[in-house]
């Protein structure tokens, strides 16, 4: 893991009406690192991702990617630079088969530039990506309509969409939520394999047990503010963190 800082977030602020969703959050993300962002419900985790990828405009604060400021760019430009995200509320293209879902990312300017001109047969590339991610080619799973796939496969499809873009940073927004223990047991090795391939990942999660096995570094949010940061073992012992999750009475 290098020391090169890939993503630098400084002082992000966002309030909707009277509610402060994100208050003065700053952190660094190093290349090859897996960062976990945790916090109770409503602590602003998804808003933070929206601010970084600029699906929502920030009130204050800046984001730097590889040293260059990106907090003024449009959302698609940031995705084009290689910062991709999954959506907590799954939104695949239901009327299309699973592999056709990947045509849009494979058609995007980023992949066309990296692939060096014509990518060739996008359908074949899409099916290869799906096979790598666990869609069994023999059972014709990649050809099924996205609307008929169970949730575990849809989550993988979302991840496949991110991977099809040859990303620099992958932001996974609650990718384990809604899955059964068996399905999570198959997803965790996938995330570990991505880690081993050297990808830089940010994971927002509620399931701390699985998350702490994967991440190198954790940031904890509560009511929009960062209350702790560090290794998983340190963070879990932190006073503020325990108070946030268990409440003041729970500490007694």
């Amino acid at each position, binding site marked *: 893991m290098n020391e090169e800082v890939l993503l630098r977030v400084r002082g992000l602020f966002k309030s909707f009406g009277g509610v402060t969703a994100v208050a003065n959050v700053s952190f660094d993300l190093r290349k090859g690192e897996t960062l976990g962002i945790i916090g109770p419900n409503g602590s602003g985790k998804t808003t933070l991702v929206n601010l970084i990828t*600029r*699906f*929502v*405009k920030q009130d204050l604060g800046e984001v730097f990617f590889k040293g260059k400021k990106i907090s003024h760019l*449009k*959302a698609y430009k940031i995705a084009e630079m290689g910062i991709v995200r999954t959506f907590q509320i799954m939104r695949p293209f239901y009327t299309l088969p699973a592999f056709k879902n990947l045509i849009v990312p494979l058609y995007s300017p980023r992949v066309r530039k990296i692939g060096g001109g014509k990518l060739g047969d996008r359908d074949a590339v899409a099916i290869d990506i799906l096979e790598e991610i666990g869609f069994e080619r023999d059972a014709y799973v990649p050809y099924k309509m996205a609307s008929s796939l169970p949730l575990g496969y849809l989550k993988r499809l979302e991840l496949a969409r991110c991977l099809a873009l040859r990303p620099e940073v992958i932001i996974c927004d609650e990718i384990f939520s809604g899955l059964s223990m068996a399905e999570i047991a198959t997803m965790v090795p996938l995330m570990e394999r991505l880690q081993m391939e050297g990808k830089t990942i940010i994971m927002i999660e509620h399931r701390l047990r699985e998350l702490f096995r994967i991440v190198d570094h954790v940031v904890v949010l509560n009511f929009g503010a960062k209350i702790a940061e560090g290794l998983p073992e340190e963070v879990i012992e932190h006073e503020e963190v325990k108070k946030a999750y268990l409440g003041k009475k729970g500490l007694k």
Partner: protein
Amino acid sequence: MMLGMDSDRMATISLAVGSALAGVAAVVILPLGNLTVESGYQVLIYAVAVCIVGGLGSWPGAVVAAFLLGYAQILTDKFGGSHYQAVVAMAAIIITLILRPSGLFGKQKELEERV
């Protein structure tokens, strides 16, 4: 629907209220001259311009925009010549959509946050 309100009924009521308001407007405009079947289309242009300039979702915005556009119309009529009135409406729509899409008092702020 899931919150216990019948959304079809709400839509019907909105349609009824909107149409009633349009009917009142027609009655108000009657003394200005004649009323034909095609009068509706003429008013439509200025109504849409007012909506866009004032901002969808805010009726104070519509009132303010109505005054603004009305005065702009009369002033162009007096100083520019009466055939430029429609041009004013069109220019107002285009300028609003380019500079500030949610209009003067628009509630749909996400239009501006549409980065």
